[in-house]
């Protein structure tokens, strides 16, 4: 399979690989996918509670180049966004940016799920109601 230059760039130089302290109240962690399916993404956000802004984002991904690139790109986009802006990120924006082929769209879906799951974790930790996760993609 031919990968786009952007996928190759993110795969070769992934942004924001790492781990945030998940015990902190202002850190949200999303873990999505399953080893048997060949993709597991863990995406974490650190939120400035006064401004509701994402100050840091980290990821670790077990998956193909497109899955790694999707999560790497997601962390880049998350930094500096408010939580509400982050919620609005749609998987098709990732598809477009990385020029993912149809068979790799599920990687972008997973990245979107990871963002939402991290935000939900943050919300629950801070006494906010959980948002409904759109699972319709799968």
């Amino acid at each position: 399979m031919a990968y786009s230059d952007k996928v190759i760039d993110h795969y070769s130089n992934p942004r924001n690989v790492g781990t945030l302290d998940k015990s902190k109240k202002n850190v949200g962690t999303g873990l999505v996918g399953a080893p048997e399916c060949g993709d597991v993404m863990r995406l974490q956000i650190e939120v400035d509670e006064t401004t509701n802004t994402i100050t840091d984002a980290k990821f670790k991904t077990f998956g193909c180049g497109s899955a790694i690139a999707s999560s790497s790109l997601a962390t880049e986009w998350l930094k500096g966004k408010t939580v509400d802006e982050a919620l609005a990120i749609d998987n098709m924006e990732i598809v477009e940016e990385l020029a993912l082929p149809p068979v790799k769209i599920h990687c972008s879906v997973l990245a979107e799920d990871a963002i939402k799951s991290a935000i939900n974790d943050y919300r629950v930790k801070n006494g906010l109601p959980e948002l409904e996760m759109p699972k319709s993609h799968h």
Partner: protein
Amino acid sequence: MLKLPIYLDNNATTPLDPRVLEAMMPYLTEVFGNAASRNHPFGWAAEEAVDYAREQIASLINCDPKEIIFTSGATESDNLGIKGVFEMYSQKGNHIITATTEHKAVLDTCKHIEKLGGRVTYLPVNAEGLISLEELEAAMTPETILVTIMYGNNETGTIQPIREIARIAHQHGALFMTDGTQAVGKIPVDVIADGIDLMAFSAHKMYGPKGVGALYVRRKNPRVKVTAQMDGGGHERGMRSGTLNVPGIVGLGKACELCKLEMEADTQRLSTMRDRLERELLTLEESYVNGSREHRLPHVANISFKYVEGEGLMMGVKDLAVSSGSACTSASLEPSYVLKALGLSDDLAHSSLRFGLSRFTTDEQVDYAINHVKEAVTKLREMSPLWEMFKEGIDLNSIEWAEH
């Protein structure tokens, strides 16, 4: 200067040995006759070349030159052997025994036989990829006409106990066939000593050209016959019609001659190289050899790297031409059925790499491959949440994964 990518997929196909090409050249140019043309020198020259190739091949596998039936390759030979025996011996019975780790050319042919009303037993294999002789014995019935078990496996290199299998088949009055595609030319294969009645093999796995192979069909003790699967001019003692591929056959003959001459030296050099590659890669934590390490072809290594995803790994080793245990043709990944038959979980099957060395592989290439794979696996693990969990001592099975 090392040329990239490095070709380490010699179980898929091997490069043509220049000496083979040289032998073939005249038959692609001035000596173009049809080997079946009996009434002029053009035909005679072609026939002579074919007869000489038959002798070169026969000498490698210790058979009579008349027992070689030329085909287009191992897939055709597997089809001809299995379907041909099924038709020819239908009076005697309709049961065939094979194994789950066979090549698709055998498995799908057996599926076809089932559609025709035949009965097929697919023997399982143990964690090393070997069938159980007791299970084979137990599967034999008076209706069993054929046992077909491959010599060396294409994915793991595992070598089956061919002589014992042949003996059991014969004790029960069945014929024994083997797909020798990966073994012939690489290790000593002797159809007499091994008790083989039919054997499929191909030129392009032993430095010969693509598009030519052979089926060995025993003529004595017992005299084996197969029903032709193609109608036509009755070439190859009526078993395989079609004008002979003279340059291809000359290439197969020359490839066999070279393999016989160089087998011992090649085996020694390649197994040393393979062992070094394997030893080095096994220094990576959580890496495992797939298949038997004791009963194995000398040039093959199949290794799984846990906590690394297969497709990501393939992308990481882009400087190497290797195969992975992951046949990823679409969004749904299909792990190798051979590795699954050995009992590997899907994720370990996905994250496997098969290295196939050749006569032309150099130490420098192997050095590069070792470093390249180590770097890729290490980098991907640093990025892998599963690796982090493993390092923290978290049991991955204890996690409720969000299935998708």
